[in-house]
């Protein structure tokens, strides 16, 4: 009986489970190496063992209400910048992609703006928006909005003529066509833009955070760095990384849920089916 119970547990792993276990093992190995390096090799003003960083995370970062508030502001800025980027990115994208004329006029300009390295404008941005959240939101926005616009435009552009013709021949209104043909077609491309936009948005906000070091997360990183205090410094940076990962995951989950034809199956209602 106990033998049967044992064999029932020894099931071969699925491919996904094996991948997951190897991934965990790899991460554990990296953490272990960093830990050992911290104990035996590293300059204690530059790196400390992972266990000490975790301790600082609890002791210096999460228990300091000012730092937690600063991280909270950071989350707020990322959110606001992202929401603004989506609204403006999609609207500008729709406007720029709606006709051939608009696209040919606007698209090159947008592409050029996109490739300009924006870091050089950061001091200027701080000058005009001040040291508060506005500058950070603006910097996140100016990074995120372009990939969203570009992907919306290219998504609209690749709609198949055949589908548009079919919809037209069925008597679809302009609104119907947008709702059922153009928008669903755009969704994968839109999410490409949203994912890229989130990455760049995080970059923009956090860059501005670190640059403006008179308050907020940037102030604390500077404080810890100047004290040669790597424990809390890395704990703080780790917290930022964690925030970034959570935001990226949110976009990924939204993509999975909202891409049409991936999850929903609707019931069919016919009169025959209702009468058994």
């Amino acid at each position, binding site marked *: 009986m106990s033998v049967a119970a044992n064999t029932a547990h020894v099931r071969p792993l699925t491919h996904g489970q094996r991948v997951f276990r190897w991934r965990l093992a790899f991460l554990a190995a990296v953490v272990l190496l960093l830990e050992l390096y911290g104990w035996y090799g590293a300059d204690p003003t530059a790196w400390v063992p992972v266990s000490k960083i975790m301790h600082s995370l609890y002791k210096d970062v999460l228990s300091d209400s000012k730092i937690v508030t600063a991280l909270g502001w950071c989350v707020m800025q990322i959110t606001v910048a992202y929401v603004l980027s989506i609204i403006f990115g999609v609207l500008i994208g729709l406007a720029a992609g709606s006709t051939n004329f608009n696209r040919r006029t606007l698209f090159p300009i947008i592409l050029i703006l996109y490739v300009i390295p924006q870091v050089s404008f950061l001091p200027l941005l701080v000058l005009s928006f001040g040291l508060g959240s506005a500058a950070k939101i603006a910097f996140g926005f100016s990074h995120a909005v372009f990939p969203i616009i570009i992907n919306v435009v290219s998504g609209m552009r690749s709609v198949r003529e055949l589908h548009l013709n*079919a919809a037209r*021949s*069925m008597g*679809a209104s302009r609104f*119907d066509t947008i709702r*059922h043909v153009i928008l669903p077609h755009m969704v994968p491309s839109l999410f490409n833009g949203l994912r890229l936009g989130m990455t760049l948005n995080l970059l923009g906000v956090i860059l501005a955070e670190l640059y403006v070091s008179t308050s907020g997360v940037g102030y604390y990183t500077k404080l810890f760095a100047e004290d040669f205090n790597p424990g809390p410094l890395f704990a703080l940076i780790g917290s930022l990384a964690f925030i970034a990962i959570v935001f990226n995951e949110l976009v990924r989950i939204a993509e999975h849920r909202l891409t049409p*034809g991936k999850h929903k199956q609707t019931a069919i209602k016919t*009169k*025959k089916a209702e009468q058994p």
Partner: protein
Amino acid sequence: MSAPDANNDVAISVRNITQRFGEAGSPDEVLALDDVSLDIKRGEFVCLLGPSGCGKSTILNIVGGLFKPTQGTATVAGRLVEGAPHPDQIAFVFQESTLLPWYTVIENFRIALKFRGMNKAEWDDRAMAALRAVGMASFARHYPDQLSVGMRQRVNMARGLCVETPILLMDEPFAALDEQTRMVLGEDLSQLLAARQKTIVFVTHSLAEAVFLSDRIFVMTARPGKIKTIIDVNESHPRSPDFMLEPRFSELRNECYALLRDEIRRTVAAQRDPQPAGT
């Protein structure tokens, strides 16, 4: 503005249509149709038969109102088409499947019925009836890319049927199907025609299909497309497979073949001879 031919028996009337593609005067300019005129009566089943590239799809597109011809007019049920579709009159079955890949089969039917302004309560009944007619009812919840090419085409055709317009334009709807399924669906179509008095314009490359289904076969020339000959098939609908065994059937089939062979030879020869303008 009154139509040039207000005859009530005429469902579709095409007058002197010429269609050019590409920029005028450029080497890419293609003369697809050259002064084509035809009349299709109400309740008639007409096949367009002709070599590939002769402009069959173009005729359907113009009649369906997808674009305006370079010259000439098309009239559907007494109304000029002028590049605007008449969804209340015409259902279009395109050569390629136009099912939207992000909707399931049933959802594709629903939006087709919605676009045409059908009552929502009827959507699923109509859809399932049309799917049953082509033997695809059990795939209603599948996505188009989960179906084989032939299954997709059956669904695509059923979607054209479910809206029950008086006129059906069908561009090679059976092209990806096996011979047997073609036959069965062809018989169904013939039955439908007898029962519902639909006007059908049908493009095919299959001679047997053309003879089996048509009241009249419009044989076209190679590009630039013109109507070369009209062949009458005097046989009432619904037609049974026995019709194919009659000597008359093979005579008509051979007649079509003889007409087409010259045209196809001409197209192939034109392609083989290198054009001096190219280099």
